[in-house]
């Protein structure tokens, strides 16, 4: 019998410590493991290669995504960096254009000099993607959906159908939705990537990354790169991420309920010009959401009428914290143009709609009336 995701989450990492029966996975704060005898191993030799605490997390991640293997990294960017080592000089990737600024920086400042080129496309527009794959050397799709910060939705099934016959790998950054709301591997993607700092760990107290795959070949390649590059997650943070996962389903459902209320409220506010939230009935990605996602998540972007108001909003909020990051139990407000997307040139930002009137909200699990009152007071 396949268990529900709530059950898998609540019991993540249980029943692993045979010796003591400890319900919570032990934190193996060790670098090395004693060998029983020459040429023998317990399965653990050196913690960079494998650590029992990290393994509990990695196996959980794989199960949640319906994959065969999971990997935990020191950060979301360490995860992406490791995955991008699957490509070689001369390869091109089609990349979602309103991409997380850190991933953009990684592509432009680190991988482009090595001859790996990102071709930025609106991946929510299938025709643009079809046009872009005519270029020579396309070996991968790197898709964020919903995108950051404009919450555009890509059709993962359709993209995978395009990619597969051409031998193109599809990589999906599933940070915003998590396996509770979207399972890219089940929709056909080859690799799912997460900044586990966000919803997976969920308490704004860990920096971590995760990757899941469903093919043996990719699993072996990534295991090799994880060990060779070494951007692994430490045992304490692996354990905290595992602890965070136990309440993932509860948190993201509550956050989503709150987000829908707030997005609806913002839509009617006189100083708000535009609200980007896939849970709203007229969101352009709504039909894809209904086919491929279980829920729209809890990220909202909105445009106010006057950029001059922004400083007062950011310093006036009392419940929302003015901080980067997202996905935690506490609500955060971010100014994408100067924070998360500062590395994207101003012309591109403007074209995409990431202008200086745009604010992004990550909705937490506070009481929704308190959140609305807080926004009301500053708007």
């Amino acid at each position, binding site marked *: *019998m396949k*268990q*529900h*995701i*709530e*059950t898998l*989450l*609540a*019991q993540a990492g*249980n*029943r692993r410590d045979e010796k003591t*029966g400890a*319900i*919570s996975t032990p934190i193996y704060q060790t670098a090395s493991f004693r060998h029983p005898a020459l040429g023998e191993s317990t399965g653990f030799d050196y913690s960079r290669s494998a650590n029992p605490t990290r393994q509990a997390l990695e196996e959980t991640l794989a199960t949640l995504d319906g994959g065969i293997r999971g990997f935990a990294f020191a950060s979301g960017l360490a995860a992406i960096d490791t995955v991008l080592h699957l490509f070689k000089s001369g390869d091109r990737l089609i990349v979602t254009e309103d991409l997380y600024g850190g991933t953009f920086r990684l592509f432009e400042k680190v991988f482009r000099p090595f001859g790996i080129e990102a071709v930025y496309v609106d991946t929510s527009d299938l025709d643009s993607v079809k046009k872009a794959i005519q270029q020579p050397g396309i070996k991968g799709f790197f898709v964020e959906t919903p995108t950051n910060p404009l919450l555009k939705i890509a059709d993962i099934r359709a993209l995978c159908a395009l990619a597969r016959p051409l031998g193109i790998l599809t990589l999906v950054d599933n940070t915003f939705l998590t396996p509770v709301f979207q399972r890219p591997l089940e929709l056909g993607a080859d690799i799912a990537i997460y900044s586990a700092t966000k919803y997976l760990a969920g*308490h*704004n*107290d860990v920096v971590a990354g995760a990757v899941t795959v469903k093919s043996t070949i990719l699993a072996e390649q990534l295991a090799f790169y994880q060990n060779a590059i070494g951007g692994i997650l430490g045992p304490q943070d692996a354990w905290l991420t595992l*602890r965070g996962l*136990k*309440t993932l*389903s*509860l*948190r993201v459902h*509550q956050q989503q309920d709150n987000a829908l209320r707030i997005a609806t409220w913002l839509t009617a506010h006189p100083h708000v010009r535009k609200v980007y939230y896939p849970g709203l009935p007229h969101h352009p990605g709504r039909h894809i959401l209904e086919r491929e996602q279980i829920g729209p998540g809890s990220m909202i972007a909105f445009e106010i009428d006057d950029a001059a108001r922004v400083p007062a909003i950011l310093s006036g909020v009392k*419940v929302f*914290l003015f*901080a980067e990051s997202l996905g*935690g*139990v*506490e609500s*955060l407000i971010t100014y994408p143009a100067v924070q998360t997307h500062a590395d994207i040139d101003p012309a591109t930002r403007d074209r995409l709609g990431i202008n200086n009137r745009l604010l992004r909200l990550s909705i*937490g*699990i*506070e*009481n929704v*009336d*308190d*959140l609305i009152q807080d926004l009301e007071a500053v708007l």
Partner: protein
Amino acid sequence: MKLETTLIHSGKDRDPYTGASSIPIYQTSTFAQPDPEHPGPYDYARSGNPTREALEHSIAVLEGGSTGLAFASGVAATSSVLLLFKPGDHLIVGNDIYGGTYRILTTLFTRWKLDFSFVDSTNPEAVRKAITPATKAIFVESPANPLLTITNLRAMVEIARAHNLLAIIDNTFMTPYLQRPLELGFDIVIHSATKFLGGHSDLIAGLAVTRDETLGRHLKAIHNTFGAILGPQDSWLVQRGIRTLGVRLEAQQKSAGQIALWLQSHPAVKKVFYPGLPEHPGHGIHVRQADGAGAVLSFELADKACVLRLLATAKLALPAVSLGGVESILSYPAMMSHAAMPREERLFRGITDGLVRLSVGLEAPDDLMNDLESALSKK
């Protein structure tokens, strides 16, 4: 602010120095002093630690008290509270008190000439009759462990006020999310924070809150003198647990209600004890003093053999002591929480050899019922 918001923003949970959204873990024993004539706010971590203080502040705010204190375990909190009394003082203690508390009283404090009577606190008249000139306090649990008996808290406060007694309650089963005894007039609330407050079966901790500041100062002096304080790492983890207390308890309570109804109609189950059931003897009182029935229930099977078979066969609910975690736990009071109590005494309290306690976790309730069903129907 509503409770869901206070769980996340209680006031001292941000770092004033760096703005970190999570309070730092101050893993330090001592604090450098600027100048001996003007000592800083912290000197030695037993007396005060900023991480522990954030938690102590949270629990005080949530319970609506003046002073919160964090202890190394629930029984450390109880023992410290009992040190408020002196030899010759008499306490009235609820019959259904937790086995660990029973043990402290009958093995430790009795040698220090603290006198006590165990009384059926569900009967206010019995409590009133037990008062002697030496009586100084009433100490109850509601719902009590493991039969979930309900004590009328307002009636206890009335008796305590009339006779100048301290009213003390162990609020572990409810947490301030569901029941706030200080608001009803109690003087001291005690928690095993190991349970719902920590919530992840991964730490041992106790908390105490006083309504009155003077009483708080006395208890704080004992806290510092006796020194059974909670360490910074565990303080931080309890605080992290509290952030999801609301969403966890809501989900656990909902599942518990469903499972209680299902068990009630099961042929192998003789009786179900759960305050959310209308036929539960204390149901009427409970709904007037608490916001929900919680997530712990007990049920009675035919005999010890049936219980042992259930514990051996259940695959999902873990056979273990403790409760309140994200994972469901089945326990056998006769051999676990009440093992310290003589058999006659135990049977007199209705804790039979067929009684099982279930702490309902976050697994999908269907998975839990399927698991219990296959375990209960096994011959």
